[in-house]
């Protein structure tokens, strides 16, 4: 017993910081929660994991029909199918991460009111469990690239950076929405619309350079613009990645992340009392 660490519980005041050491101690629970989310995602569905393929494919087909065939968007040097598929894969990873994370605290309410652990791991697990779907869709993208005989260039090395940017952005928004939803259930109702609006201000079916030049800076304040453009740039070498615009997106993503996290840690103390 000697040497056992003393834990002091008292009312906390002011801004809470991330307790990294504690987070590290709970890493196994984090793995288990990710594992559980992956395991039960497609339980009791007829098509099972096939859904991870069907959804991006359906998205690709719909956008090709609407944007390419109906409106007549096309992209130079890249088959439109491939172009939009990259966008859909990145978008789905983001959108599903955000909506999963935003509802994660409520769907794990019984954990929160019964056991202690750093709450941040719940929305984080919800986002990271989406990596499996993402990986499956990514393999499909590679298959499509082979089919279209499209060779990737050296820029593919930057892909992990854009995946990381997606995760950071989703975490920021996920932290923010999930912590608010504990107190205000409105988030659950507003979420589909928020995601829909975000979809339209994100270049999933078109290229970012369709936006007039004077609006570009404002446009790139949406970090997902950078994510989608970045995915295409690194995988298909399509479009350009102006550094100052990337900088704006990354700064906004980091700001969102910090804002979301600080708010989360502040509200965390009351979760069990209000949920």
């Amino acid at each position: 017993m000697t040497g056992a660490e003393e834990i002091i519980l008292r009312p906390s005041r002011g801004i809470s910081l991330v307790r990294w050491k504690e987070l590290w101690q709970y890493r196994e629970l984090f793995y288990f929660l990710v594992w559980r989310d992956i395991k039960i995602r497609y339980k009791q569905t007829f098509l099972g994991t096939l859904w991870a393929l069907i959804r991006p494919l359906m998205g690709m087909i719909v956008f090709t029909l609407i944007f390419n065939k109906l409106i007549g968007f096309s992209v130079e040097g890249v088959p439109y199918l491939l172009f939009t598929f990259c966008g859909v894969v990145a978008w789905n990873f983001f959108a599903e991460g955000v909506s999963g994370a935003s509802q994660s605290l409520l769907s794990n309410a019984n954990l929160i009111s019964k056991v202690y652990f750093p709450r941040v791991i719940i929305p984080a697990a919800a986002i990271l469990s989406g990596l499996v779907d993402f990986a499956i869709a990514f393999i499909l993208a590679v298959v499509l690239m082979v089919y279209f005989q499209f060779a990737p260039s050296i820029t593919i090395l930057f892909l992990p950076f854009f995946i990381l940017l997606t995760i950071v952005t989703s975490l920021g928004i996920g932290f923010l929405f999930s912590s608010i939803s504990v107190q205000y259930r409105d988030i659950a109702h507003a979420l589909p619309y928020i995601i829909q609006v975000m979809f339209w201000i994100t270049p999933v079916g078109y290229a970012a350079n369709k936006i007039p030049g004077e609006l570009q800076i404002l446009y790139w304040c949406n970090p997902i613009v950078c994510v989608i453009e970045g995915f295409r740039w690194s995988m298909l070498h399509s479009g350009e990645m102006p550094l100052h615009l990337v900088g704006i997106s990354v700064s906004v993503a980091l700001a969102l992340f910090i804002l979301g996290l600080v708010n989360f840690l502040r509200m965390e103390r009351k979760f069990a009392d209000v949920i």
Partner: protein
Amino acid sequence: METVIDIKNLSKRYRIGSLRRHTSFRDLFDEKLRELTRFSKRNIRNDESTIWALKDVSFSVEQGEVLGIIGRNGAGKSTLLKILSRITEPTDGVVRLRGRIASLLEVGTGFSGELTGRENIFLNGAILGMKKKEIQEKFDEIVAFSEVEKFLDTPLKRYSSGMHMRLAFAVAAHLEPEILLIDEVLAVGDIQFQRKCISKMDQIGSSGRTILFVSHTMSLIRQLCKRAILLHQGSVAASGDVDAVISRYEDIGIEQQSSEWTNDDERDKKEAIWIQKIAIEDTAGVQKRSFLNSDDIIVRFTVQVNDPHPYLKVGFDLLKDGTPVFRTQQTDYPNQIPLDKPGVYDVKCRIPQHLLNAGEYTITPLLSAHLIKSFMHRFEPILKFEVTIDASLSDYYSVLSRQNHPGVVFPSLRWDIESR
């Protein structure tokens, strides 16, 4: 001896109003609207009041101690455990803990119906704070304890509630924290499994670990703990030797002067069934607190049924010195009219003469709806009556009047004497 839990001036305040009021922005809007259309003077803001679930609680626990925590519903027991297990923060005060703490506030936390028994053991273990290696090492032991070997690879949602519970307790019982918080986990399950759990807890307690044990079952508290703490309205009302604390507990809240108890809990009125009143009477309908063993005793419930259900049961536990004498329910007696229409019913139980021995008895009412798992309302002991031996009955009794028979019951048994 080392102090492992040190609690100083611990307080916790809850805002009652905010829970219901702010679940969505619309509620806020709705309420303003209602306020406008409401004629009564009663201002909604009165609801904004706060309650102190815990107020200035201080005590400490030594290493290896098994401490019982008792108190009526709403006394603050669960809040205390919630603070100790770090689920919620105190409003004031300090707690110092030494060692790994684990709580069984409810076993089976985080169980997922879609996962198999095997998978749930790992998930639940991780949630309760076990390392993966630790779970692997104890896996066989956990499975053996739970008695669900055959269903390990079946999804949990196909389990019976008994199997579910056994698996949950099996995982929890194999935790090895230095401090264990237990809240009424033994309330469910069959007798045999309950015994197994109790002996496991006894074993944990004797292995030098510290246990805080919350229960309404005094016989269990007595069996497992040497020392107990009584919480009443958020404060420590008594602390020390377990028997002394339990007898204090039994006095709190009992109608000391009255032979009638009226339920004034507003929350109960919305239930499917609720007890308005309980009275103890003699056969002539006169309320009394003191009876002779030659009297019949009538326990009369006034019950209001709001939401009829064919299996509603009304009953009570009769206790003497905290030990159950018997439990009885109206359905134990054949050919009762069912409580299947809304309305108010008089439900009477007759405790026959020559059954109870001399002494003080308490009544703990029970309400349950069979087959509705979630509905089982157990009250606290609320009424007390006294039985004395009727000295006028025979010559033998008058001799005995100053010297009671041992035993809980004093039946009038037939003896035959024949000369041969």
